[in-house]
C-alpha cells in the first residue's frame, strides 16, 4: 500500500466537492428532463439519511486510514452495536442512555482489540480487522436469527426521524462529529501524531511518537464511530439488526468514500472534510439514480465507473499540480 502514489498531492484537496457540485447539477437537470424533482423534501431527506449512516462510519474510517491502518470490521461492529443498543433499551426510554453507553463501550472494545492486534501483535490491519470481523460474524450468526430488541421510542423519534427543515438530526450529528474530528486532527497532538504515524511510522517512532498508543486510539475511535452509526441505524430500524452492517456494505463503501474524499489509502495525507464530500457524492449518485428509476444493476455499473472516474480526476489534478 505504501507506494500507491509516487506523487505528492496537495493537502487542501476537497476537489471532491467540485465533483459533488457537478454531479448534483447534472443530476438535477437530468431528473428535471425526466419529469421529476431532485431537490424535493422527501428526496433530500432520504439522501441526507443515507449520507448520515455512511458518513458516521466513514469519518471513523478516515482516522484509521490516515494512520496508515484500515478497518474492515466496521460492518460487523455496526450490526453488533444496533443489537446491543436495541436489546438494552428493549423499548423503554429509561434505558436509553445506558444502552447508548453500552453500545459504544462494546464498540470501543472491538476497536481496542483491532488496535492491539495491529500494534502489539503486528498483524497487518487488513488481516487483523478481517479476522475480527469474522469473529464478530460468528457471534452474530450463532446468536441471532434476525432482528432483536426494540429501540426506545424517544431515540427513534429524535435521532431516527427528527429533522430541522429538510436536514435530519442524524446529518447534523454527522456534521458535528466531522467538525470535532477535523479539529482534533488539526489542533491536537493526537491528530498530528496520527498523521505522522500514517506518513512514516519509523519517522514518527524515532521522533518520539508512541505509535502504538496513537494507532490503538485511532482504532478505538473508528469503532466508536461505527458504534454510533449502529445506534443511528437502530433508531431508524426500530430494532437491532444482525445483518444491517454487512448488507449496507459499510466496510467497502466507507473506505471508498474516504479515498474519493482525497485521503491516501497508504495514510499520512488527507482529511475528514473530503470524506464527507465523498459520502455526499456517493449518496447523491444513489439519489439521482433512484429518481430516474435506473435498474439496480445498471446503477452498479455506473457507480463503479463514477468512483473510478472521480478519483482519476483528482489524481490528474494532483499530477498537474505536482508538475507545476
Amino acid at each position, binding site marked *: 500500500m505504501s507506494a500507491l502514489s509516487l506523487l*505528492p498531492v496537495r493537502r487542501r484537496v476537497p476537489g471532491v466537492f467540485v465533483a459533488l457540485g457537478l454531479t448534483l447539477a447534472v443530476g438535477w437537470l437530468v431528473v428535471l428532463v425526466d419529469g421529476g424533482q431532485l431537490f424535493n423534501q422527501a428526496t433530500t431527506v432520504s439522501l441526507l439519511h443515507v449520507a448520515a449512516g455512511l458518513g458516521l462510519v466513514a469519518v471513523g474510517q478516515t482516522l484509521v486510514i490516515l494512520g496508515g491502518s484500515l478497518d474492515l470490521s466496521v460492518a460487523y461492529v455496526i450490526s453488533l452495536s444496533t443489537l446491543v443498543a436495541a436489546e438494552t433499551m428493549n423499548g423503554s426510554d429509561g434505558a436509553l442512555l445506558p444502552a447508548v453507553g453500552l453500545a459504544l463501550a462494546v464498540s470501543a472494545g472491538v476497536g481496542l482489540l483491532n488496535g492491539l492486534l495491529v500494534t502489539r501483535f503486528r498483524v497487518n490491519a487488513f488481516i487483523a480487522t478481517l479476522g475480527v470481523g469474522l469473529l464478530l460474524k460468528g457471534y452474530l450468526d450463532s446468536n441471532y436469527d434476525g432482528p432483536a430488541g426494540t429501540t426506545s421510542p424517544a431515540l427513534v423519534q429524535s435521532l431516527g426521524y427528527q429533522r430541522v427543515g429538510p436536514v435530519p438530526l442524524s446529518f447534523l450529528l454527522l456534521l458535528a462529529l466531522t467538525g470535532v474530528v477535523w479539529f482534533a486532527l488539526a489542533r491536537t497532538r493526537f491528530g*498530528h501524531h496520527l498523521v*505522522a504515524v500514517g*506518513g512514516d511510522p519509523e519517522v*514518527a517512532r524515532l*521522533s*518520539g511518537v*508512541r505509535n502504538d498508543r496513537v494507532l490503538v486510539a485511532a482504532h478505538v475511535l473508528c469503532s466508536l464511530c461505527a458504534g454510533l452509526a449502529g445506534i443511528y441505524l437502530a433508531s431508524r430500524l426500530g430494532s437491532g439488526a444482525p445483518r444491517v452492517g454487512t448488507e449496507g456494505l459499510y466496510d467497502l463503501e466507507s473506505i471508498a468514500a474516504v479515498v474519493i474524499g482525497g485521503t491516501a489509502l497508504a495514510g499520512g495525507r488527507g482529511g475528514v472534510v473530503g470524506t464527507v464530500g465523498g459520502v455526499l457524492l456517493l449518496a447523491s449518485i444513489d439519489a439521482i439514480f433512484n429518481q430516474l428509476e435506473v435498474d439496480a444493476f445498471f446503477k452498479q455499473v455506473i457507480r463503479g465507473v463514477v468512483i473510478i472516474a472521480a478519483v482519476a480526476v483528482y489524481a490528474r489534478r494532483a499530477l498537474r499540480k505536482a508538475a507545476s
Partner: protein
Amino acid sequence: MPDPPPLLTLRGIGKSFLGVRVLDGIDLDVAPGEVHAVVGENGAGKSTLMKIVSGGYAPDTGSIEVAGARRVLRGPRDAQRAGIGIIHQEFNLLPERTVAENVHLGHEPVRHGLVDRRAMREHTRSLLAAIGETDLAADTRVGRLGVAQQQVVEIAKALALDARLLIMDEPTAALADHEVELLYGLVRRLQQRGIGVLYVSHRLTEVFDLSDRITVLKDGRLVTTVDTADTSTDDLVRHMVGRELSSYYPDRAAPDDLGPVRLTVRGAGNRKLRAVDLDLRAGEVLGIGGLQGSGRSALARALFGVSPFTTGDVTLDGRPVRLRSPRAAVRAGIAYVTEDRKGEGIVPRQSVLDNALLAGRAVFPARSGHAARTRRVRDLLAAVEVRAAGDDQEIRFLSGGNQQKVVLARWLALDPRVLLFDEPTRGIDVGAKSAIHDLVRRLARDGAAVLMISSDLPELLGMSDRIVVMRDGRIAGELPADATEEDVVALAVGHAPEADR
C-alpha cells in the same frame, strides 16, 4: 576524566542483528561542553551506536548512564526525556507535513490542550535562523525541499528538543561548504552552553576542526579514543582503515586521455534550468559545483530523463538523443547515481545481489546469459568492496556507505558511456571514498564520460578535469582543474564576473 559527571557514559554496549554482532563492548563518554567525534569505516557500527544512545534500538548488553544516572531507554521518547537529541544519518522527515510540523513532531507545543500552531511556526523560524537559514518558510511542505534544505530541517528538528546531549550522525553529508561553516558556529555555541555533542562524520577536516576527542570504531569494536590535539589525520586513517592511505585523489586525465566530445547540451532548459550549454568529453571527469538549489541535481535529472529538458538539444556521440525517461537514458548508455539513496537508490527489502542486478534486468535482456551477468555483478560487488553478511542479505541492513557501493555496482554492470554522479561519496568512509575516486577515474580512463556533482569542495577540486559552476538554474561559469575553492565559491554566489568559456 572531567570533574562533573559525564553527560553520557556507555559501558560494554553490544548489539546483534539476526545473529550478526554489530557492536561489541563499546565504552564511551561525553562530558558537558565536549564535542566527541566518532569515526570509522562504513558499517563500523557508528549509526547503530548512535541509535542505541537515542533510544532507536535497544542494546543487547551494556549500560547507559545519562548525567551519572543509569537509564534504560525503552524508545526514542525515553531518550528525548533524558535530554538526548539526534540528527539521523538518513532523513527522518515526513514529506507531506510542513517544516514546522516536522520540527516539532512528537513534542508539539500545546496551549489549553491544543496544539499552538503559531508558537510552532515562530519557534521553527528562530531555530532556522540560528542555523542561518532565513529564507526557508516554516509552513513549506518538506517534500518540496531539496536535499540540503531537508538536512537543515533535520538539524532544526534536533535542536528543537533543547537537548543536553546532541548526536549528529553525518550532519554535513548533504551540506555545501558555507552551510558547514554555519553548522560549525552552531556547534560551538552549543558547546559553550555546556551541551555535549556526539559527532559522526567521514569528513576528517570537520572532525579535526570541531572535536575535543575522537573515538574510532572498527567492525563494531572500539579501536581507540584519542584527544584530537594529540593525533593526526594519518594516525586516524590508520586506525580506521588499518593501513596507510597514500594519496587522496588519483591523477587527473592527461590531455591525450581525452576522447571526442561525447555529450553536448545546447540551449537546453526546463522548469528549473535555463539555457544550459555543456560539452562532456569521453575520458574526462567534469565536476559540477554550486550552492544548494542551484540546479545541479536538476541538471543530472534532466539528462537522465527524470524531469527532461523541454527545450534545447542533446547529442550523444554526435547523434541527437531524446532523453524522455530514465529508461531511454539507460538505453542510451547513461547511468545516474542519485543523491537520495534511501528514497531513490535502493530497493530496501531486496537482496544486495538483486539491487545490483536491478538496472540490467530491467533494461537489457541478459546479453551473455543470466549466469554470466550474475558472475560479473558479483565481481563488481567485490571490486567496490561491499561489506555484507552475504549477497543475499537485504540491502536495508547494510550501512549507508555500503548501500552506496551496491548502487555503484548496479550501474557499473551496464558499462555506461556517460555516468552522472550526484554526490557519489556522500556518507562514504575515507577508505571507500578513495576506492570510489579511483573507480571513477578508472571509468573515465576506460573511455566513459563522467559528470560529477559534489558539495565537497576538496573532492570536487581534486577529482575534476574541469569544473562547471551553476547558479540559479544556469551555468555560471567554468573553471580549469587548478581552480581554488575561492574561485568556485565566488562563481557560485555570483561575486566574480562570469568566466569566459
